[in-house]
């Protein structure tokens, strides 16, 4: 009897089923639409990130050093069209990359377009000594990077001479005497071997392993120059340019590591050390090869008014050194 009554109300089943079906369709479609909308939103956000990155550009413009020749600050320009935030500074020395610090932990490092920011090295960060072979890298929070060499940032790029005279073999204030180039055996401590003499430097044997190099330069500027301990003599194998070997200045003044070069005077410059005033001779560990030679000088000009201005020069030696057995 009850079944019969139930069957009498079957018209209600259709209505309820329809309502449930509607609910089901609405729930499923809403879920799908929300998920699809979120996906589209995510895709758009990612496109925005890429668009912002494409507008971002920064440039390291200058570094400054303190009296101890430690880097005291770094200047970065925003040359892009969007605000940037500097989030990391790295130093690359001899192929080793080191994260120095995150500048945004110490100050607001946001830079507006066309503006620049001076980032001071915090006191709790290990000191960063000036290294002429080091590179500095700055990175933003969007992953844009800039890289430059420390000497370039400190002394500025090497400028071409304003009046180039092809009859004179120099670029810059120091003129190299090309015919005076020699090597001498030393011991591991850089002491010249008393039984040896200065040999022409164009071809050197691979052994013995410790050498001093001597060149002669003439100060043809109008100002006296003092070069410092970072001046180096660099052998660059033509087959493997990244294995550059550097000998550092054996200065005439051993206490300061400096050498004075008077105007219009020719002086010998000797290179012995494996680091600036390291006290250890550089080891010749190159295989048999032919090398290009580069001389780098760092120091100061002595101006007429008694002040000093930074000086740096690179001399690409127009010669090759051959290392033989």
């Amino acid at each position, binding site marked *: 009897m009850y079944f019969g009554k139930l069957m009498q109300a079957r018209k209600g089943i259709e209505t309820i089923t329809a309502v*449930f079906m509607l609910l089901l369709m609405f729930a499923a479609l809403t879920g799908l639409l929300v998920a699809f909308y979120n*996906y589209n939103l995510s*895709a758009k956000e990612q496109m925005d990130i890429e668009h912002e990155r494409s507008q971002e550009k920064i440039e390291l413009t200058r570094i400054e050093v303190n009296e101890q020749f430690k880097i005291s600050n770094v200047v970065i320009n925003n040359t892009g069209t969007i605000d940037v935030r500097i989030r*990391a500074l790295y130093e690359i020395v*001899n192929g080793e990359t080191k994260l120095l610090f995150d500048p945004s932990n110490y100050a607001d490092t946001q830079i507006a377009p066309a503006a620049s920011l001076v980032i001071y090295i915090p006191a709790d960060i290990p000191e960063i000594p000036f290294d002429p072979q080091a590179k500095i890298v700055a990175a933003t*929070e969007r992953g844009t990077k800039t890289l430059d060499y420390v000497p370039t940032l400190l002394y500025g790029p090497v400028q071409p001479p304003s009046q180039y005279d092809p009859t004179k073999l120099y670029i810059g204030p120091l003129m190299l005497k090309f015919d005076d180039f020699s090597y001498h055996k030393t011991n591991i401590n850089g002491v010249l071997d008393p039984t040896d003499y200065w040999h022409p430097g164009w071809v050197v044997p691979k052994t013995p392993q410790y050498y001093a190099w001597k060149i002669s330069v003439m100060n043809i500027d109008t100002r006296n120059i003092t070069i410092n301990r970072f001046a180096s003599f660099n052998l660059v194998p033509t087959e493997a340019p*990244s*294995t550059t070997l550097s000998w550092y200045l054996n200065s005439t003044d051993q206490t300061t590591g400096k050498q004075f070069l008077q105007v219009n005077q020719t002086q010998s410059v000797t290179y012995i050390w494996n680091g600036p005033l390291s006290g250890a001779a550089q080891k010749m560990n190159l295989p048999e090869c032919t090398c290009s030679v580069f001389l780098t000088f760092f120091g100061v000009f002595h101006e007429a008014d008694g002040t000093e201005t930074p000086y740096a020069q690179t001399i690409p030696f127009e010669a090759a050194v051959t290392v033989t057995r």
Partner: protein
Amino acid sequence: MVSALKASNDKALSPIFATLIILAVVTVLFIPVFIWATGATSQTQESWQTSGLIATERIVIEEVNLKAGTASCTIYVRNIGKTAVSVDNVFISLSDGTGTMHVYSKSGSPPTFTTSPNSVIQGDLITLTFTTLGFTPATNEAYTVKVFTTRGVGDTYQVVT
């Protein structure tokens, strides 16, 4: 008379009872259908949600400290996407395609590198430290370093030793 009253009472109560019972039966029958239908759509939803997460996941390898003759390595990776990321896999190989591809996994047993921190949000840096690479990088070689997150988003970096 009594029987007539009973008959009239039965007729008065049965439509309400019948409707309630039908409602209950239909609801009970609809539950598995609803579960099945929402389950089927939720897979699609999850797929889109994951795609959305991956779309906003983006990392860049900022620097790699890989030096010739040194069998350790440090990789600096920045999260530049909206999604928080964790790094799971690193591949290092010679760029010219020769030699072995060295595969490192943080979730492997034992893990072959460590990350600090484990997960980073947008703009932050994650440092991957390899105490031993299992090989010594050669001099004057170009190596390709690939880093992948747990969702498979990656970046590539080339370093010359």
